[in-house]
């Protein structure tokens, strides 16, 4: 029964999501804006800042980590090594897609229903809190995930189009696939779970969105620590990270169920 209920919540959420112009815009266009922005940064950094970046201490440390992780890059010229370093950040940059979609979509998923009164009617049915929250989180996470994978494909096409196709072999490896198919789904779920939790606790839509902004900070932190060479995310490290985030997903769901105040939703939102 739970599976059927979650599926029904998911299908209803999709029906609402894709009939709302704002949400549809965020889900379909935001990923392309993020990919475009990332490629633009890489191109600008490589085209105009290449020499100075090569001499900067912070990038030398990062390049050293890159060489340790991918010894094959030593065959490349220094500038090409720098380009591989920049392109390798993209898989972490992709994590921004589900988190940003979560901020926009998940944060309103409960608040909207509180405001319209449909949540009170829903809470009068036998639906369980975890079914409701998981259904809502999956309804946002799945399209966000699909868009992330499409964006990754587009990124590779554009990289080839820019004449950097020879470098794709260095960028797309075990770590790339682990990020895309393990870490991204885990981060997507975490983002949406946190978004839905924030939404269920918020007193108003603005409060929901403010809470959700915090979701994006850890992703920036990941990008920051890799590009500055503090830590290089090797496949095994990505695997560990994905597992940790997966456990966090589960804990967040449990916490979200505990924090979901059925009574306060019914009493305070009229």
């Amino acid at each position: 029964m739970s599976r059927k209920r979650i599926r029904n919540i998911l299908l209803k959420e999709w029906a609402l999501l894709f009939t709302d112009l704002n949400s549809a815009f965020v889900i379909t266009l935001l990923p392309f804006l993020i990919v475009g922005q990332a490629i633009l940064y890489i191109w600008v950094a490589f085209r105009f800042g290449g020499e100075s970046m090569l001499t900067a201490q912070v990038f030398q440390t990062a390049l050293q980590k890159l060489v340790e992780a991918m010894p094959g890059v030593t065959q490349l010229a220094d500038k090409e090594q720098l380009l591989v370093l920049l392109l390798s950040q993209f898989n972490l940059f992709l994590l921004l897609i589900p988190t940003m979609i979560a901020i926009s979509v998940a944060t309103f998923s409960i608040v909207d229903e509180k405001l319209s009164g449909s949540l009170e009617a829903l809470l009068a049915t036998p639906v369980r809190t975890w079914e409701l929250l998981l259904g809502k989180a999956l309804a946002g996470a799945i399209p966000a995930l699909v868009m992330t994978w499409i964006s990754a494909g587009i990124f590779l096409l554009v990289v080839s189009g820019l004449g950097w196709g020879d470098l794709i072999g260095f960028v797309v490896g075990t770590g790339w696939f682990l990020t895309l198919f393990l870490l991204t789904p885990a981060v997507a779920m975490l983002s949406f779970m946190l978004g839905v939790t924030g939404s269920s606790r918020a007193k108003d839509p603005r409060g929901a969105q403010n809470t959700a902004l915090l979701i994006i900070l850890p992703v920036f932190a990941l990008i920051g620590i890799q590009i500055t060479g503090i830590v290089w995310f090797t496949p095994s490290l990505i695997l560990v990270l994905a597992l940790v985030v997966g456990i966090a997903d589960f804990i967040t769901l449990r916490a979200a169920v505990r924090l979901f105040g059925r009574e306060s939703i019914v009493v305070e939102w009229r």
Partner: protein
Amino acid sequence: MAIIETFGLSRHFGKTAAVEDLTLAIEAGEVLGFLGPNGAGKTTTIRMLAGMIAPTKGYAIVAHHRTDRDVEQLHEIVGILTQMPGLYNRLSARRNLEYFASFYPSIESQSQVEKYLKLMGLWERRDSKVGTFSKGMKQRLALARALVHEPKVLFLDEPTAGLDPEAAGEVRQLIRTLREEGRTIFLSTHNLSEAEILCNRIAVLHTRLLALDTPEQLRRRFFRRQIIVQLEALDAEVTDKVKKLPFVQEMREEGSQLILELTDSERNRPDLVKAIVETGGRVIGVSEKQYPLEDVYLRLIHEENKNES
């Protein structure tokens, strides 16, 4: 057999008591009107009985389920029409109902959705988006949603509030149909004539339960039965004769009417008419003075306010 029973049911929000020590029993198949001013605790009571909020003291049993313990089972057998219709405006009427019906394991949702869309007169508009519906249509759809799983008990929280007279009449007619089907209905309303038309018994709540009885018994509690005799013309001989009748307790004249309180309003009526006719009086009609339920309600609330102050 009681299908709803409450035992000292109370709910406080902080230091404020919303409902205090509510004890009542409602029979299966009964329609109970729940009256009270704004903030009297009507919605809070409904929410407690529907298992949506827990009491702070006391408990309630609805269809053999403790409302504070067996919440999931309770939600399968009660239906609630909340004050806001709470529908998804961008979805069709059918999709809205299908969604809510999908949470109940024991029903065949497709046929139930069809049944209630037809009953509510919305079948022709089943594929229209709810956002295009009038307020009355939305209310009927919300009522369909409350019924789609064939609940044993139906809670209606101000079902006609904010509707125009035509739409309110349609909703009332639907409630009447449900009553005829023998459903147990707990109807919270501000509309006293609606309560009188639709309900077997009336409960008046003002945080505490002030009264619970049939509309007729409630009237008798405050107003003695008065018989109105409409005469063609009043004359002294008739009034003297009537005044002396042993079963006449009180009498006053109003135009060509005699207003009387009798020992037994039913049994003494023929003797009264006979006595008037024998004295030469010409009787046009005999009726009982009807006090509107509103008068009873206002007296109850007024007395409660006086007690509080």
